[in-house]
């Protein structure tokens, strides 16, 4: 790893620890990390749009012979100027008098999106799911196959549970009739079905959050191996001077802040007593 990369990796290690410091309480190190992430993401996205959208579509086009030409000056695609104009009209939102103009491009965009989305979403997210829910029960494979036969999604038992769960969950959301008697019992089954679904999502979410922490540990482990030699204490000789300067500066910052926090805490205790 060259020195420049190592320096940035060290800074990333600092930002990782700064972000996790939020688990204790909100603090300036966390704020710094948060602002850097937001700023870098916004800046990266803006430049990406500029180079992937505006420049090749509107200003420059590469010809078959590899030359570039400017769309504005020698345009054989003048219709490209129409979406460009609509895009400019979006900026009228910043004017109180003319912000109504921005509704035109918005209307066009929403209209096109709805026109594309409605039939495809209806077909793929509603109809196909309905067909699958109402599929014939597979009596020949009722208990399912494989190691976890009872979790076989193709089994008749799974199909039956899906139908019962869907109907019960829908009944739970039917509020035009009091949830009493058989109707109430089915609604209760519906809420249990929903809870099982939320439980599965919660389990996966825990796994996702732990995964992030594991990745950061792996990253810090890699950084530590790069920064320190096999003894685990001495900075890698390739980076000794710069590493020590940067590392100890970070340590000084953290220790300084922690000392300040302790002093505030002790003073607060003394006042309250």
């Amino acid at each position, binding site marked *: 790893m060259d020195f420049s990369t190592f320096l940035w990796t060290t800074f990333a290690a600092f930002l990782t620890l700064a972000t996790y410091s939020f*688990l*204790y309480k909100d603090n300036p190190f966390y704020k710094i990390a948060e602002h850097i992430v937001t700023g870098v993401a916004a800046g990266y996205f803006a430049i990406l749009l500029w180079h992937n959208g505006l420049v090749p579509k509107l200003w420059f086009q590469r010809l078959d012979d590899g030359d570039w030409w400017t769309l504005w000056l020698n345009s054989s695609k003048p219709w490209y100027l129409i979406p460009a104009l609509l895009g400019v009209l979006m900026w009228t939102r910043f004017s109180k008098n003319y912000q109504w103009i921005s509704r035109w491009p918005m209307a066009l965009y929403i209209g096109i999106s709805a026109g594309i*989305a409605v039939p495809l979403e209806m077909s793929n997210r509603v109809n196909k799911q309905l067909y*699958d829910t109402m599929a014939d029960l597979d009596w020949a494979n009722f208990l399912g196959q494989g190691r976890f036969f009872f979790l076989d*999604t193709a089994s008749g038992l799974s199909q039956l549970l899906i139908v019962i769960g869907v109907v019960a969950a829908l009944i739970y959301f039917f509020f035009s009739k009091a949830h009493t008697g058989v109707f109430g019992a089915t609604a209760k089954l519906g809420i249990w079905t929903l809870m099982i679904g939320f439980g599965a999502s919660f389990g*996966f979410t825990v796994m996702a959050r*732990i*995964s*992030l922490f*594991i990745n950061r540990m792996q990253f810090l482990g890699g950084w530590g191996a790069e920064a320190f030699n096999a003894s685990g204490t001495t900075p890698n000789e390739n980076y000794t001077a710069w590493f020590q300067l940067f590392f100890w500066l970070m340590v000084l910052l953290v220790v300084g802040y922690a000392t300040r926090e302790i002093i505030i805490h002790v003073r607060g205790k003394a006042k309250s007593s």
Partner: protein
Amino acid sequence: MDIFEKLMRLDRRWVFLFLIVVCVLTYAFDFEIPVLVEPEVEAIFDFVDTLPAGSVVMIPIDYDPGSLAELHPMTYAIVEQCWRKEIKLIFSALSQNSPGMADQAIRDISDSLKVEKEYNGVVYPPREIVNGVDYCFLGYKPYPAIIILSMGQNFRLPFPLDYYGTPLDSLPMMRNIQNYDDVACVIDISGTNSTDYWISYGQGRYGFPLAIGVTGVSTAQYYPFYGSGQIFGIMGGMLGAAQYEQLADNPGLAKDGMRVQWSAHMVIILFIILGNVGYFVSRYRARREERR
């Protein structure tokens, strides 16, 4: 104040600290956790494994660095498997912060192909991966739904040039590839809602075989699409990645993290049980006091 009341009033930061200590300790000690492979992950592996050399697979890398922990291991395992089997790849990056990261990953995996390796008893010789011959990286364009729809007509409509600025027709592997009809399958690895677009606007509109690798948070919501056959496989979070690494006989960061996952889940289950015991005992006592 007895132990149950203390449990109910425990500062959550003690839970965080305990969890961090357990995770760090488990990470420090190297031991292996058995990983049971699920059919939805095996389906993806088998599909890729049975493709003949020269086939084309599309892999959209639709995730930001924030989802890298769960999804990078999937990308690394699948891409290496494909390239070892001489399958050509088309990459895209329809999430705004993914192109640079995807480019870095492609270079990293290309480098790992330069050494001979053995997977599942088969020795694969070293290979030089060449841009335009073994893969094509399309890059990023905004509005994934529109891009996915237009790629179904022709990849050149949204991407006349690849990520590096080369016209697609200049790339040898893209000369006979027009649209999804020319790819064996699409394996979308996504940390955003682009998976919804691939299901509705891609598979739903053009009917190609689609598999997905998604973050743990969103895994549960995509299982209905697996049940209905709209996707033929699903990898969920780090566990899905670890299962794929196991199948591919290519242990990586996901399998390395499973022992920490195991211990962290044990701690969380323990705290859930303790919290519930504390809650129910406190409620029982409060009711008993009311009755008196």
